[in-house]
């Protein structure tokens, strides 16, 4: 399992919408829109945890459905799952519904082993 070093600035997916940078501002769209899914990188370990947080933070405050695509995840650890968990809870607190459009087995196994699979809405 190679650990690639990634600089924080290069992990934004191309499809990501330009949402308001301040997560405390209420979402402008209150109905379900076609937001592109948040795609998780293949390598999300503690070294990429800060970048992951930056990727997810702008989506807090959206209401409606937030779709996450975890099908590409190959390497994940506790730190990254902790970030995901914090995201899911914060997003829900703002009225969002989390849905997974794809889950890799690596992600599924890790989430289950840490006991957080149900908390982030992955089926057991």
């Amino acid at each position, binding site marked *: 399992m190679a650990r690639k070093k990634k600089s924080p600035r290069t992990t934004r997916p191309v499809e990501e919408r330009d949402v308001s940078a301040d*997560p405390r501002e209420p979402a402008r769209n209150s109905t379900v829109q076609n937001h592109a899914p948040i795609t998780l990188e293949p390598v999300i370990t503690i070294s990429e945890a800060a970048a992951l*947080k930056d990727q997810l933070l702008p989506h807090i405050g959206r209401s409606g459905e937030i779709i996450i695509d975890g099908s590409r995840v190959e390497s994940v650890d506790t*730190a990254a*799952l*902790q970030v995901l968990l914090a995201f899911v809870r914060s997003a829900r607190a703002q009225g969002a519904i989390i849905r997974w459009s794809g889950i890799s087995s690596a992600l599924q196994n890790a989430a289950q082993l*840490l006991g957080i699979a149900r908390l982030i809405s992955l089926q057991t």
Partner: protein
Amino acid sequence: MAVDLDLSQFHGLFFEESAEGLTAMESGLLNLRTDAPDLEIINMVFRAAHSIKGGAGTFGFNEVAHFTHILETLLDEMRDRKRGVTQELIDLLLESVDGLRYMLDSSKNGRATDMQRMRALEQRLTTLPREAHNEGEARWQIKFTPRRHLLKTGNDPYRIFRELQSTGGLTVKVNAQRLPNLAELDPEEIHLDWELYKKAGETTEASIRELFAWVEGDCDLQVALLGERRHMVERRKGREPEGGEAEAETAGKGHEQASIRINIEKIDGLINLVGELVITQSILNRIASDHAVDSRAEKLKWVVGLLERNTSELQDHAMRIRMLPIDFTFNRLPRLVRDLSRSLGKQVELKISGNSTEVDKTVLEKISDPLVHLIRNAVDHGIEKPEDRLAADKPAQGLIEISAHQEGGNIIIKISDDGAGLNPERILAKARERGLVAEHEELTPMEVQNLIFQPGFSTASEVSDISGRGVGMDVVRRNITDLGGHIELMSVPGKGSIFNIKLPLTLAILDGQLIRIGREVFIVPLLNIVESIQPRKAHALEVTGQNEVYRFRDQYIPVIRLYQCFTIPTEIRELPQGLLVVVEAGEQRAALFVDEVLGQQQVVIKSLEANYQQVAGLSGATILGDGTVAMIIDVPGLIHMLRAKKAVRAVV
């Protein structure tokens, strides 16, 4: 080419079979242990669910099929050992059995099903976390609380858990309460802690701690062993039965024997005809014996004798067709005791014995509610809370025993508990409060105990606590006496109570005492008779001008002049000229004034309602050997009528 089949004719059969299947499932689940789950039981429950699913699908009960499929999936995982057996799981499955019963019942009676209730159950079933081990099994409990900076050394709980998991049987529970919201979270620090459970097996504490060795200084680690470590012993099939459990199981296993279902009307019709046959045969018998001297009659007598034996056997068999093991009623009780004791915070063990004793189907049906009520009472009022029991130097777990056995033509059911017993002072006080006993009235201990059977003793609010129905001990007793039986109570304060119930095995025949009034013959059920006596004028007394009482043993009991009740012409009007038959129903006694007491015999009961109409004071009729009709006296009914009349008179 579509074939239009009307399957609705088979619905009844499906509902019956499903009801049986659900009972079997319930029984299995109640017997399932969490520390060493019996695979046979799980398999049996699975098969039962599978059958119901199949039938439901065939007959178009799709909601039922869908729901049962979910249960089937869970059970399948259990038997594949992919899902551990926990108390939570068993409870949820039992709730689901109830839900299924409800669904099937609604379908059967054409009522709408509350789908919201079923959806909620479904939700719980599908989101129940899968435990890796059986609860109660020996397992390690590991409480792991990392310090915030644990990740900085390159260590990761994920890898540690992965190693724990490699030898199987790991369940992980996370606590994320300390986790800040995303904006405030430092992603390189850790704010989670865990409780892990690992099947003990061969694992040692040292081997567990070894896995956490590198992070020892960066966390709080607690390791404890839960449950009992057992040696792996082969479970033999013929294991030691625990009290009545083995018997209850064999009753369930009866399903494997060849059996067929018959419509109850067909049975009743058959039994009726057998009854007719018996009567005809006894008339024939009488005729044959009348011609005793004639030598040609010898052959006749011999044939008649043969016939008598045949019909007697036929009658026995016919009676037995309607008989069912009392287990059909007893099998509700373990669940009841379990649920009730749970909700009341008590620990109660229920021991059942004699549940294969057979009793008439109608008796079975009518005794069910009284038994349930008595058991409920035993758990609710009898058995004390664990702390109270310990304080009284009793084991924390209370014991209720119910047993049934046959004695002559009766079935004796005994319900005993080792609870608090009845407190005579409290009962007396309550009875006085309710106006059942006068302030200064003195009662014997037996009389005090029997006060609980008085109507009005328990208020509806007390009694309906869990059942929601107002049922008092008086109704219990009435149900039993209506069946021609009686109930007796023995209780020792602090030690417990015993209820003894005597019931006739069958409602179709009766052991009766023949009596004569004028030219009419009546039958008094032997079960109700206390004694027959020659009355003495000295003991007779007239009270308030209308009521006649007679001194019998230490009591004064009312006299019932049957010739008046039934308007029968007779010469015998003075007490010393006739006889008094002292009868009782419940704790009420009366003396029936009759002309003569004749013999005793077993009679076949024929319904008055079916052949004529219901008559107050009579519970049926029969045809005697000489072809005459004899009425059967309804003792409880008569006594009840008497009290009613007295009450009316008192008011007037």
